[in-house]
């Protein structure tokens, strides 16, 4: 004790150690989890709780920290409908813990993969479309959360001719610069 004025911090519950482990794990394992962490911090917690309410459990930090290391394989972001994956998901419907750090508190929710991904999507759109939020007055819940099953839908395909036109237009606008929308410099 009498070592001068050095302050020693004891990590009795090994929170720091586990936190460090989780950050390391996040880099290697789960792009999804680190994405959630960085993005969730900006979401309105009330909204998030109301969305996940049915499956929500709140736990004291220590237990949550212990749970971090024992969670199963994180959801792999499948963006394209693969029939074989879907049929498996329908059969097993496994849930995994989703841990969210927000504003100094931690919450763990037991969610199936699809709900977890919806939340990720929700958060991302809330983040990206913040201007559109103001116009529409708040985040709209995706249709799928109202009791329906979430499906990873194939992206809507676009006609080739229009695809080419849109690409060319982008090119022209890039060439001209952001302030000359109508007057594109001809490329010869």
């Amino acid at each position, binding site marked *: 004790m009498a070592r001068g004025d050095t302050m020693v911090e004891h990590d009795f519950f090994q929170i720091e150690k586990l936190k460090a482990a989780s950050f390391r794990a996040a880099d290697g394992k789960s792009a999804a989890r680190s994405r959630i962490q960085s993005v969730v911090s900006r979401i309105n917690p009330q909204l998030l709780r109301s969305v996940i309410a049915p499956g929500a459990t709140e736990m004291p930090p220590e237990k949550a920290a212990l749970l971090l290391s024992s969670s199963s394989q994180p959801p*792999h*972001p*499948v*963006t*394209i*409908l*693969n*029939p*074989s994956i*879907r*049929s498996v998901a*329908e059969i097993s419907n496994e849930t995994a813990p989703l841990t969210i750090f927000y504003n100094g508190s931690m919450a763990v929710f037991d969610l199936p993969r699809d709900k977890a991904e919806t939340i990720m999507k929700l958060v991302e*759109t809330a983040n990206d479309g913040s201007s*559109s939020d103001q116009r529409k007055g708040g*985040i*709209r*819940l*995706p*249709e*799928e959360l*109202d009791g*329906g*099953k979430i*499906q990873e*839908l*194939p*992206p*809507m*395909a*676009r*006609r*080739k*001719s*229009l*695809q*080419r*036109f*849109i690409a060319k*237009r*982008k090119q*022209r*606008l890039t060439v001209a610069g952001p302030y*000359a*929308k*109508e*007057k*594109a*410099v*001809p490329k010869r």
Partner: protein
Amino acid sequence: MSARTLNRVMSFGISDLALEFVLGYVDDPRDREAVSLVCKKWYQIDALSRKHVTIAICYSTSPGRLRRRFPNLESLQLKGKPRAAMFNLIPEDWGGYVGPWIREIAEAFNCLKSLHLRRMIVKDEDIRVLVKARGHMLESLKLDKCSGLSTDGLLLVARSCRFTGIWIGSVGLYYFSLVEFGNQVFGFDIWLIHLEPHGPSPAHDLFLAKVGSDRGDYGLDSGEIGCLRILSLEESSISGNDAKWIHELAVNNSVLETLNFYMTELRVAPEDLELLAKNCRSLVSLKISECDISYLISFFLIATKLEEFGGGSFNDQVGDLDKYMKIQFPPKLCCVGLIFMGKNEMEILFPFAAALKKLDLQYTFLSTEDHCQLIQRCPNLEVLEVRDVIGDRGLEVVAQTCKKLRRLRIERGDDDQGLEDEQGCVSQAGLSSLAQGCLELEYLAVYVSDITNAALECLGTYSKNLCDFRLVLLDREQRITDLPLDNGVRALLKGCAKIRRFALYLRPGGLSDVGLGYIGQYSNNVRWILMGNIGESDRGLLRFSQGCPRLQKLELRSCCFTERALAMAALRLPSLRYLWVQGYVASPFGNDLLLMARAFWNIEFIPPKHDVNETEDRRGNIESQAQILAYYSLAGKRVDCPDSVIPLHPA
């Protein structure tokens, strides 16, 4: 009456000759089909006198079979790749090779004057064979969304037009002298007869007679003989950078009426277009690739008969808009579609906007307001194609102004909202106005951002002439005002009894199983249906398949149906002859698909590609989902499948 025998040999007292004459007036393919089913004699007469055949999928029959049944065909349309190819969903090497057909045409179809190939692979060699055998007779060649050829092939077509000619009736007015003889090109002898009227003869007075071994076959008869009047290459992928073929076409052809290479990357020189206009005095329709419109000032002055012009482009430099204002369009021009046209340039259309019948604004840079400004000057518009930047406001203007509108296509604009006008989305408001304002509407294809049942009901109430209806619900808005659309769809189908083509692409929750059942129940006349993200379960599909008595072609995308349900539906739909599915619930070993295996029913499977980059690139590589293609075929299993296509049945 009891002794009366149905003596079909005598065809109810009508002689064969009379029957042939009568059938000569019967053109509709459905009528012809009915005729051919009466008895063998009628079948034979129909077969020998059938002028046109459309083959919806080229693998449903073989060239030999076509020739054996319809040897005297004058016009043939062949389609290759599934429709989804237009959306980049079909591998390029899927198939649709025209080679075997061209060889048969070259050998046996001696009356063929018109060939239309759609979504097929056409190689230069195929063109060479075609032109060699039929170049002297070909009046119309359309390569529509084809691929595989180069400008060398086009050069062959252009050169074949050297053999153009018109027989004239009254020889006395003209004298002719033999200019060339025995010009052996393409393997047959030709006489080039140069005819001079009372004055000097311009290039287009060059006449030709084709002779085979019997010179007497061809008398001096009035009429055209085999010369290219229509050449269309719209949206085809053609390699090669030279524009020689246009020059050759301009030099060799004098009767061209339609030239179309819209939406291609072909290079074009304005001088060649001017030459074309000079030589082809009947040029009525020209659609080109990108070429600055200001270079076409002379062309427009020469092509006085032009009624339709598409393509071109605007590349205005800063402060140099005057050059576009100098353009004087031909007096009869009524169909226009200019690429990259912006707000400032659209004024060049104002002087004749009131005469416009067709307007294509899909590839322009106009805002919602610009659309309003332009369209309000076009009261005679019959065909309009736009992107959804037209917005509800623009549709209001259409509804008020374009009372003669028959066809309206509203395509999907850029998803990047920064580039499209903020007001640029179409919703139930625009659709309702449109329905009430444009009562002549026959074709409506629209990408909407929002929709209600009421809007569809409105269409059902007012759009009584609707034959073709396609609605796609974009995924821009998270919440849609009024889903599911069950009642609206029912009202639409009930009200628009003439609908033969129907497409509905929504999102989960957009249409319930009940709604899907309605489609089945009220689609009495529908021949083609495309559905995406509709229904809730197999039950919906099975209910659907209990109806649709005339459904011939079904395309399903991104639906929740199992293989089993798909197979059951395919078996149950009485008229189904073509099925395409992408995105479904697969059975563990793909067995369920074979539940629909039966004679003459080809089943092909395109497995999903397992690309490493798949998950990262959300936009690209949509092809990676499994697809099922099934169709009736008399030709048996395909023999030209690439590795990506697996024929499941026949095994």
